[in-house]
């Protein structure tokens, strides 16, 4: 049995779901692959919980029952303040999992954490997009020079292996990627069309059921979708800068717009587009005929159409959702373990 030490930074929706999924599935993974996934440290904005030998299932479940910002209260393992150096010195992790919030101005805290991890010989799995969007080449070069992996399939269509598939299409020239990449805004639009409520009401409902954040700016203003286009562009080797993505704010859509569209047999969608031939990228409010394939993707589903010089593909799946995203993170962790850690 091989032990793999994992450090998790960020213990919000995804962090908790990840810890819970690991606690429920690690025995199964151990039986199947002969590896013990040991979560040795977990951090939030106020503190960390550290256990060198790895937390057991019961401890992981109890941890995910903590209120926000309370890891430091997780007796006897909790400590005030996050000192990543201390964490690494004590736990010597093989894999670093970054689940902190996205900050598109600085990339922090993810950017520093990821570089620190790589420089201390840990592979990285991130669901946080900002460090990749702002520092993709630097991060990848750092990893490559040390023979380490950085995986991030949870960042785009987080509940699906879309990025894995895209990056495996190595012989294709990818000309166009277009789709619904943000679950929150798609849910809001679906609410507006189905229940004929205005934007504010739909947003409130999305917040009530946990589909939208208390501060929905990143979703509503198109930053999240733009960041995803940016990551896609890097994966297919035709990088664009996030600032060059043209964005429209979804808050402009009124109930009247929706009614007008419906009357004309159309549906309003918030569509992200990366056109590598014309080198343009945008996140726009568009009207689509009702029978358009993207028009039929409702609620928290995401969908992408990929056009290459050889073929056209259509991909539908859950965009986020903490449990789905946690599984994507877990899958990245396992693929690193199987390819890199055990193989070595």
């Amino acid at each position, binding site marked *: 049995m091989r032990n793999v030490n994992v450090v998790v930074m960020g213990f919000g929706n995804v962090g908790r779901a990840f810890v819970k999924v690991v606690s429920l599935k690690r025995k199964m993974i151990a039986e199947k692959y002969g590896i013990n996934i040991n979560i040795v440290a977990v951090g939030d904005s106020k503190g960390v919980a550290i256990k060198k030998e790895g937390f057991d299932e*019961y401890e992981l479940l109890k941890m995910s029952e903590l209120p926000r910002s309370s890891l430091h*209260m997780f007796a006897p393992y909790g400590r005030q303040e996050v000192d990543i150096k201390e964490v690494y010195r004590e736990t010597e992790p093989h894999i670093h999992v970054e689940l902190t919030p996205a900050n598109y101005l600085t990339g922090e805290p993810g950017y520093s954490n990821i570089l620190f991890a790589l420089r201390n010989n840990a592979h990285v799995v991130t669901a946080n997009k900002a460090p990749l969007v702002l520092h993709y080449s630097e991060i990848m070069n750092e990893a490559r020079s040390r023979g380490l992996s950085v995986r991030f399939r949870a960042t785009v269509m987080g509940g699906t292996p879309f990025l894995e598939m895209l990056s495996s299409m190595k012989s294709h020239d990818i000309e166009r990627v277009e789709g619904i990449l943000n679950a929150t805004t798609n849910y809001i639009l679906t609410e507006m069309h189905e229940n004929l409520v205005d934007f504010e*009401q739909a947003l409130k409902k999305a917040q009530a*059921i946990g589909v939208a954040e208390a501060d929905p700016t990143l979703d509503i203003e198109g930053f999240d979708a733009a960041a995803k286009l940016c990551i896609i562009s890097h994966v297919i080797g035709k990088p664009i800068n996030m600032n060059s993505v043209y964005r429209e704010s979804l808050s402009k859509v009124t109930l009247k717009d929706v009614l007008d569209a419906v009357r004309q047999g159309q549906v309003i969608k918030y569509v992200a587009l990366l056109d590598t031939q014309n080198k343009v990228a945008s996140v726009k409010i568009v009207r689509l005929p009702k029978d358009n394939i993207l028009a039929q993707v409702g609620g928290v589903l995401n969908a992408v159409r990929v056009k290459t010089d050889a073929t056209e593909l259509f991909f539908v799946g859950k965009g986020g959702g903490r449990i789905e995203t946690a599984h994507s993170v877990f899958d990245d962790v396992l693929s690193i373990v199987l390819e890199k850690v055990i193989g070595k």
Partner: protein
Amino acid sequence: MKERRSLCVVKVGGSLLRDGRSYIESAENIKKTFVDADRLPIVVVSAAKGVTDLLIEVAKGSKKHLEAVTEKYLSIASEFSSPKLSRRVHEELEHLKRVANTISGSFDAALQDLIVSFGERISKILMVEALEHVNVRAVELNARELIITNNIHGDASIDYVATANNLEKIVKPILETSATPVIEGFIGATEDGAVTTLGRGGSDYTATAIASLLGIDDVYLVTEVDGIMTADPALIPSAKIIKVLSYREAMEAALHGAKRINPKAFEPLEKFYGSTVFIGSWRTFGTKIQRELPADLAGPKLVMHKTSGDIPYIAIIGEGVGNTKFLKMIIDIFYEKAFSILGIQSYYYRPSILVYVQKTEELKILRELHKSLFEGAKP
């Protein structure tokens, strides 16, 4: 590591959950009755007493009732003097408040279910804390992830296949950690993740479904009373606890309005594994409800009356009461006491006789029948 056969299901009714003290009492009883006896109970909890009714008002837009719920749960939480717990409960209540703030004029059944679900969600957190408080390792399960239902908000039915799949996946980790899992009764979610509620008595339904789908032998439904009685003790003080009932008898009694039995709860038991249901209090589980009755236990089990419309009826319930001999005996009683019969209904395949009677004689008949059927008086 616990054995699978150590599992049982224990539902703790809301009438028992009034304050911090009563959560701890329930936890102590769970420990004494099950954990110390080397069993691993899956605990199903209802909302604390009165909370569901308050939340229904919240769903109609009442801020006053929202305050009442907040106060009630915060005060229960504060009795544990755990800052962690208070913060957690506070977080849930903040979430509830956000949801309540989205209420607009029109009634939205999905929103009502979401709001009402917080009653059980917070109660579960409190019960886990109470168990830990009495040194029982306990963990939360999430009904919204495990109990999958159709989308009939307010009265949803469990999707047995999807739910069985979900439950089966967590059984092994539960047995491995040997920690007592606690899950919300009464709530579930659709495949799409919308929160639903299972209707009146829904916690019993959650409990029997879990037991039946996991092939668990025993389900304990804990309330304030010691069991199901031969008649309503408020009317007939000499009413006794019924020791054994069949599913059919219990469902028939529920059909005619018997309290503490929820007919929906028997559906999974009839369709899948036939677990035995024990109904009672922490003092004693007086009534046992099982799939089949041994032949010697056939016969009348309880009498009740129901006033529907103008003509009330008396129902005599029990396997085999529809046979000719028993019918004759009942009619003899009416004849001797000179009660009038306005109508009578009985089928050989149903465990009941219904006798329509005059309003003025209703209670007298009930008493007379109880006396001759259950108190050994010769008719």
